[in-house]
């Protein structure tokens, strides 16, 4: 067998698929992060990923396809989140705390009872991007497309709702529907990204690009664009770094994102200093 040159290994289908997964997941997480950060519900990523984990584990135990049941559980969780918090007149963060604790316990109970092959369970928890198939990538592209369509179509209404949900509702905008759609989309983004980053890392992939963009952006339009671009760029650079140095992929991407956040925070600090001098 002829020895491959170092760069040639990246042309293998395995690496191409992993690279694409990271880039697409990075972009869709970055965009979803823009909503999540402004809605001030950062833990929705962790809670939804644990719903996916519980759904996946119990799906396998009950003889159902693991990925499908994980997806169904995360969509169900994000779809119920808004109506439940509105109905019980409680903040979404309070509901998330309760759901997170319950779902984690449910997932761990399932792990304890599960006697079969545990690879699927670990991939939901830690992610395993090298197990991504073309169908997974197509699904991620589908979720990203829906997200982009949602942003383009509802741009003005979305911005008004994120600015002040009550004011938007009182000024004739169907704020509740838009709010629920944002939560539902977040659920879809999380479940599509589980293979890439895993339930624990996806939180960072959602929050960090948006947090970095918020440091430097003046306008809402630039914030949305930069948030998605930072996620995409981190997914690309993080995955290439992970391939080059044989590092865990999800963690490398998230650390790269944290680096971008640090740079943006330093930039903001110096910009404020400059304004103070002026």
């Amino acid at each position: 067998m002829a020895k491959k040159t170092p760069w040639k290994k990246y042309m293998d289908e395995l690496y191409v698929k992993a690279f694409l997964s990271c880039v697409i997941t990075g972009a869709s997480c970055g965009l979803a992060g823009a909503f999540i950060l402004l809605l001030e519900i950062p833990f929705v990523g962790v809670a939804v990923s644990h719903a996916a984990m519980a759904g996946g584990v119990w799906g396998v135990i009950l003889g159902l396809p693991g990925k499908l049941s994980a997806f169904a559980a995360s969509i169900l969780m994000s779809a119920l989140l808004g109506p439940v918090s509105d109905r019980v007149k409680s903040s979404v963060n309070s509901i998330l705390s309760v759901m997170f604790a319950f779902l984690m316990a449910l997932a761990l109970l399932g792990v304890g009872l599960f006697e079969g092959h545990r690879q699927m369970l670990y991939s939901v928890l830690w992610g395993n991007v090298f197990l991504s198939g073309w169908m997974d990538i197509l699904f991620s592209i589908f979720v990203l497309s829906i997200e982009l369509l949602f942003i383009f179509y509802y741009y003005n209404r979305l911005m008004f709702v994120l600015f002040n949900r009550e004011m938007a509702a009182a000024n004739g905008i169907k704020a509740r529907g838009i709010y629920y759609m944002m939560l539902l989309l977040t659920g879809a983004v999380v479940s599509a990204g589980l293979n890439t980053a895993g339930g624990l890392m996806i939180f960072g992939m959602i929050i960090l690009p948006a947090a970095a963009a918020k440091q430097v952006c003046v306008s809402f339009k630039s914030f949305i664009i930069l948030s998605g671009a930072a996620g995409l760029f981190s997914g690309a650079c993080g995955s290439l770094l992970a391939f080059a140095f044989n590092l865990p992929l999800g963690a490398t991407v998230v650390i790269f994102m944290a680096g971008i956040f640090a740079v943006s925070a330093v930039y903001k600090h110096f910009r404020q200093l400059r304004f103070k001098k002026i």
Partner: protein
Amino acid sequence: MNNVFASAENLDVILGSKKILSRVNLKIKQGEFITLIGPNGSGKTTLVKCFLGLVKPAGGKVSLMTEKYGYIPQSSCEERGFPATAGELIETAAAGTGMNKDAVKKEINEIITELKIQKILKSRFYELSGGEKQKVMLAMVLVRKPELLVLDEPNLNLDPYAYLNFLKLADAVHKKHNITVIFVTHMINTMPVSSARVVVLKKGEISFDGRADRLFGKKNAMEKIYG
């Protein structure tokens, strides 16, 4: 033109296990500037939210003769550092009104000239002063051409000077556009002088409804509101 524009009949509101409003009867005429005053927790915000359809009554009836209304709530997102310019927010509020692009542009230009906020359009909203933020939010509401304007405690984050300016502005807007205004406040000294009619809400019930001079002409005006 002085027909009934908004009304509440025997309105009851229960939130959780607490009765917030009890058999409230109120009629508001078109073009009125009405001040809704009362101590904290008296149900002022709940009452205006009932008119706007944000709170469902447990009993009674609420009717509003228009779907064109604007509401500036007590709290805004300023603490969150919302990443948007003042101009972007005003343009966003104008979208979906059914007006074409040129009409929207013209309307926005008129409003920003009227409120004198041309210089802050490119600034980040959260970096503006309290008074400037209120003006931007007022512009966001006005570009939607409301027939009813609800201002819920606009004095909360303003110093007296900025508040006085805002009151003058609200009064000018009311007169120029003939908009019905409901002004909510809990402080007697922050009541707009232009408001001819005052409604005092106490423990979920209306304890006074009449001309402002009739209320303040009484020796026990403070007692009537807060006692």
